[in-house]
């Protein structure tokens, strides 16, 4: 049997603070959300004090709620566009382009990390300023080179928040993939080089199989993060006419703008289940690869 470094009592004692924090701030609210999801509790009014237990009534309602389906569709498009294609794709491309080019890599990394570390509210205002219809930097540039100005937030709202989120989050994927590439022994690629493999073959046969598990890990994380992200609210407020209303924004609107706490909690529970299913899907992929 493996002997642990410390006695069992010490281990339990040291775990207590962390576990109690997790319990108070994660498990309890989770259970609370589950509970009020089965009530008609509201934020104000009579039902705020005396909510009724309604069972699965909220869930049944959600399943025929067109705003829910709208939000789900937009969220999935947002995840696919900004996380899977955008952040992971662009991150991988940047990592490959800067592989073994030390100066270029540190320059590109500094730039993308900058987008990552600026506080969210500041970033949102930067983009509002950048994309403003009349005075935004982008439109000024466009009109300077003779193109017409575009009202980004009204004409391409979903595309706008997708590009915004790619810009915002590519750093993580790029850093992860750069580190993954470093784990490939240079001789693997040099062998392929001497053999005469093309660039595409080198990627397909040597690079990709060796960083597959890193790609899966990255996809799990950024999918879940992007699924639950709220920052686009600061740019578009979910509009115009719900065209950028992500699930997280819809939950917020239901619970805190329309005060329907119980109903909002039931949508949140469904979102949690979707997240869980996505995570399971990725994990099963990575298990199958190993077998």
């Amino acid at each position: 049997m493996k002997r642990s470094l410390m006695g069992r009592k010490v281990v339990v004692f040291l775990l207590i603070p962390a576990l109690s924090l997790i319990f108070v701030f994660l498990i309890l609210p989770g259970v609370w959300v589950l509970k009020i999801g089965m009530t008609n509790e509201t934020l104000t009014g009579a039902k705020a004090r005396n909510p009724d237990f309604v069972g699965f009534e909220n869930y049944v309602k959600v399943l025929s709620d067109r705003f829910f389906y709208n939000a789900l569709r937009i969220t999935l498009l947002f995840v696919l566009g900004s996380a899977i294609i955008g952040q992971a794709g662009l991150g991988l491309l940047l990592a490959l382009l800067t592989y073994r080019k030390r100066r270029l890599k540190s320059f590109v990394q500094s730039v993308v990390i900058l987008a990552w570390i600026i506080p969210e509210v500041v970033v949102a205002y930067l983009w509002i300023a950048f994309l403003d219809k009349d005075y935004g930097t982008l439109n000024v540039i466009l009109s300077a080179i003779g193109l017409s100005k575009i009202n980004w937030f009204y004409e391409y709202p979903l595309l706008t928040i997708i590009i915004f989120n790619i810009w915002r989050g590519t750093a993580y994927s790029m850093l992860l993939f750069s580190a993954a590439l470093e784990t490939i022994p240079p001789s693997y690629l040099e062998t392929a080089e001497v053999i005469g493999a093309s660039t595409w073959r080198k990627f397909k046969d040597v690079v990709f199989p060796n960083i597959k598990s890193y790609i899966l890990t990255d996809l799990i994380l950024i999918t879940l993060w992007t699924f639950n992200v709220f920052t686009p609210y600061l740019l578009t407020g979910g509009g115009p006419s719900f065209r950028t209303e992500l699930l997280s924004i819809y939950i917020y609107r239901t619970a805190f703008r329309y005060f329907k706490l119980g109903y909002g909690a039931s949508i949140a529970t469904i979102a949690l289940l979707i997240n869980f299913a996505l995570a399971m899907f990725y994990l099963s992929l990575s298990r199958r690869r190993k077998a």
Partner: protein
Amino acid sequence: MSWIVLDNVTKRFSNVVAVNRVSLKIERQDFFTLLGPSGCGKTTTLRLIAGLEFPDEGRIYIAGKDVTMELPKNRNVAMVFQNYALYPHMTVRENIAYPLLVRKVPKKEIEKKVAFVAESLQISELLERYPQQISGGQQQRVALARAVIQTPNVFLLDEPLSNLDAKLRIEARSFLKRLSMELGTSVIYVTHDQSEAMALSTKIAVMNQGHVLQVGTPRQIYDTPANTFVASFIGNPPMNIVECRFDGPTCILDGQKIDLSELALIEFPKERGFIGIRPENIALNTKEGDLVGEVYVVEPLGFETVVTVKLNTSSLRVLVFEDVPYKSGDRIFLKFRKDKLHVFDESGVRVRRRDEA
């Protein structure tokens, strides 16, 4: 023209000169070893031949063609790396077949060739396994198989034995020598292990600090080292090299005089110089000899015994193949085999004898 020619090749990395005006001629039947300590430029030289690096100056020719600035794939070379670089996600069969797959050889033919190469390298029963499921020695054979199947102009081997444990290394060495005779083209081999170089090579180039110090057959390198570096790098235990003063043909070592007039050197060093003699070319006895000293330590190694003898300030190692009746502190005489004694001038360059070409 030789099969492979390096003509005044220089390679710099920022400010470091890794390979400094190296010229080599390698014949088709050569097992040619680049030998030297780490950082001497031997691996860089190999990579220049492979095309993984490009020289700053000089030209490289393979099979009569100037390939100085050609990409590796246009040189038809095969390289085996120190870590073998077998792809962990491919089976042994896929690894061996990969070069042919890249060259779009028909499937039927690939199958036939893989079977043949695997057979001749005795790895047929490993074909369906993954590299991490076979031993280090087997991995090395797979890496060799992947090189052999390319039928290259030259095999480039970068320390292929150094990842194996001592016992396996000797075995793999014999296998490699046997294999190299059947390859029918030149092998360029990089190692820091002089015994590997001696055992395998038809020719050795000893390198240090980017320079080639000497090129020759193992015998030439061993018997007539060009300078003190080569002399001390080859052989185990290494050659004894001690500084001494010269007075004509007389060498004064720690106050004792040795008459070297029978060596018939072209000229003797003016004042300071070195003499060098291999441990197996010194005999010990208790009565008379060229030098007298004191036994410092006796190290029996089984077949042979290393006796270290201390003079005033310097010490000499002696290899004895009989039983050693001496113990530490004994007074002892050393007798040199003069025909095996080397004299080096003040800068460390070996002084030739009159009868040497």
